[in-house]
């Protein structure tokens, strides 16, 4: 493994390996001194062209827990506002000597372009509505740690599927790991070609409540054009919101997940978000461990020590 650009590039064994490593790093993060020297002397470039809190902080934390140095680039107040191209910015950051780049960008394919321009290993931290592989891995780690295995789980992804890189990353990798996936959304937020995703679909959250192990909720991405595709928020909630009443109808043991940021009162009821079924904070903490696993795999297999 040289890059992590799309989760679809990983087979089941590679995912299992990263999750095993993720388990190890969960243990490391629980120690009194939650830090190992594995990547001492390495520098990791974080290029975040889109607003991001949890993913950027999570990569930063993961790199530092492995004793790597971090070069952070965000466009606000940078040369981007002076008209610098993505390529020139990437080459500039490269000249500062990072061993790997973590890239988030609003355009599909940006991490591939940066890999081609710089020749550096690249981790995709989210490109457009396309891929977000470490999000999928942290969700798989969270599910595996909670249920013991992912194989056989019934997962419903509810919300703005069409504009979601999380949905695209999860739909493929969950199936790779043996889970079954149903996407639930107004037809205007379903993928253009749901069949080609290999998933089932449902036209309302009530249809799936009784027969799921995992309800995975997504935010409506108004910034990607997701806001003009249903009549009103109230109508969206009436058919797709995970209300308390609906959460009560979930099977025993079913869990609720959300990649954040949440819009409480829209896709998820505030009390459900804080309730016993919610794994949201586990997702965040497992995110650090799984990103440690990815950075470790990419940088220790790349340069033998």
């Amino acid at each position, binding site marked *: 493994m040289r890059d992590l650009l799309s989760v679809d590039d990983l087979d089941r064994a590679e995912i299992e390996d990263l999750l095993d490593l993720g388990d190890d790093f969960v243990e490391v993060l629980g120690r009194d001194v939650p830090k190992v020297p594995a990547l001492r002397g390495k520098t990791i470039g974080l290029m975040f062209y889109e607003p991001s809190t949890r993913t950027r902080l999570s990569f930063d934390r993961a790199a530092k827990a492995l004793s790597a140095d971090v070069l952070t680039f965000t466009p606000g107040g940078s040369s981007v506002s002076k008209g610098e191209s993505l390529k020139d910015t990437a080459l500039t950051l490269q000249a500062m000597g990072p061993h790997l780049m973590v890239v988030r960008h609003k355009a599909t394919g940006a991490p591939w*372009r940066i890999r081609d321009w710089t020749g550096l290993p690249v981790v995709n931290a989210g490109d457009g*509505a396309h891929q977000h592989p470490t999000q999928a891995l942290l969700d798989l780690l969270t599910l595996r740690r909670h249920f013991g295995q992912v194989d056989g789980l019934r997962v419903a992804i509810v919300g703005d599927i069409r504009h979601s890189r999380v949905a695209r990353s999860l739909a493929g990798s969950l199936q790779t790991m043996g889970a079954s996936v149903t996407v639930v959304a107004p037809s205007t937020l379903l993928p*253009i070609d749901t069949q080609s995703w290999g998933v089932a679909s449902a036209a309302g959250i009530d249809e799936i409540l009784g027969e799921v192990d995992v309800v995975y909720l997504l935010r409506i991405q108004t910034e990607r054009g997701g806001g003009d595709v249903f009549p009103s928020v109230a109508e969206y909630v009436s058919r797709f919101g995970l209300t308390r009443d609906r959460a009560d109808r979930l099977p025993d043991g079913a869990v609720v997940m959300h990649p954040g940021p949440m819009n409480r009162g829209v896709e998820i009821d505030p009390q459900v978000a804080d309730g016993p079924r919610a794994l949201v904070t586990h997702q965040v903490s497992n995110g650090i461990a799984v990103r440690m696993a990815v950075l470790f795999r990419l940088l220790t297999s790349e340069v033998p020590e």
Partner: protein
Amino acid sequence: MRHLITGGSVLTGSGIEDLDVELIDGFVTRLETGIEPDGHQVIDASGSWVGPGFFDLHTHLREPGQEWKEDIASGMAAAIAGGFTAVVAMPNTDPVIDAGHLARQIARFAPIRVIPSGAISLGQQGSHLAHLDDLWAAGVRLFTDDGYTVADAGLLRRAMEYIAQLGGVVAQHAEDPGLCRNGHMHEGTVSSRLGITGLPSAGEEVIIARDLKLVELTGCRYHVQHASTAGTVELIRSAKRAGLPVTAEVTPHHLMLDHRQVESMDPVYKMYPPLRSPDDVDALRAGLVDGTIDAVGTDHAPHAAFEKDVTFEEAPRGVVGLETAASIVRAAVDLDQATFFERMAIAPAKVLGERSEPLAIGSSDVVVFDPEADWVFDRPRSKSANSPWLGQVLKGTVKQVFTRSGLVSAAEEGES
């Protein structure tokens, strides 16, 4: 200067004949067998097709205003390399060609012809008619807001009524703004997987279906630019069956490539209309064979390397096409020599209302094209190199091009 083209397969009014062609100062003076060289520069055209020079209905020369991409001189050089002896320059320059004095600045008569087209609406803004009489007087025969669609049916109707009376043709870039907003590629399985907003086939077809009703209403000659979907081919086919004065063009890239190329996310594959599905490609090929689609139009759209060296969604739309058109059409569709020249040379000129014929005594504009010879597209004459075929070996080589200026190009020695 006297030239003698020997041994070629020549397209004349009587069909394909093995004839020698004598040209004096670029004009055909004899079409006979066994012409003895007598001070001629002799061109051995054995195995080659000889016919009228190619005619491109759809070229972006970028002058005035975007000369870092292309200018008229470099565009003419690219056209000659591709065997074209006339190109129709699209009006979406800066400023837009919406008045006669601007069109006159574009027009060229040597070494090949550059024929300006004119905008339908002022500034291509889609709200007021351009200076149509003025453009007509400057020699404009084809009117288009290419790059944009004339979305307002009322405006298009008035333009059609006006241009029909002049005798011109209205050409449409069909892309419904509501259906295609924010789109970057064909809407289908690949766009769905990549998370890139698509341009649905219906975005093209609803405009053409609407426009065909306006053709019925106005009687104006109407030309579909860069047809890209199977549905469009079907609309044109039934319109022609109904006797409407409709013509259509297809680009070489839409005949050869489909949306699976975009899986690479390489901006070289970004163009509008987008690369469609394999079924669409099949329908376009069939349409070109049976004549539903009259002509090849390159939609030669130069962009500088730095402009394409960005992400797919941020990249400008378009590919260059003049230099590779004949090779790509030859590779994509199995056309016999007569049909090949019909689609590349004769029919496109007729769309403009020109008299256009196979070779005869007195013809100028002759191309020698070897359909089997390989060449490498490694030195574009265009200022821009945004081509999927850059660096590739292509079959079908333009050997010589003659115009009223004489022999204007010859494949160089050692460049085979």
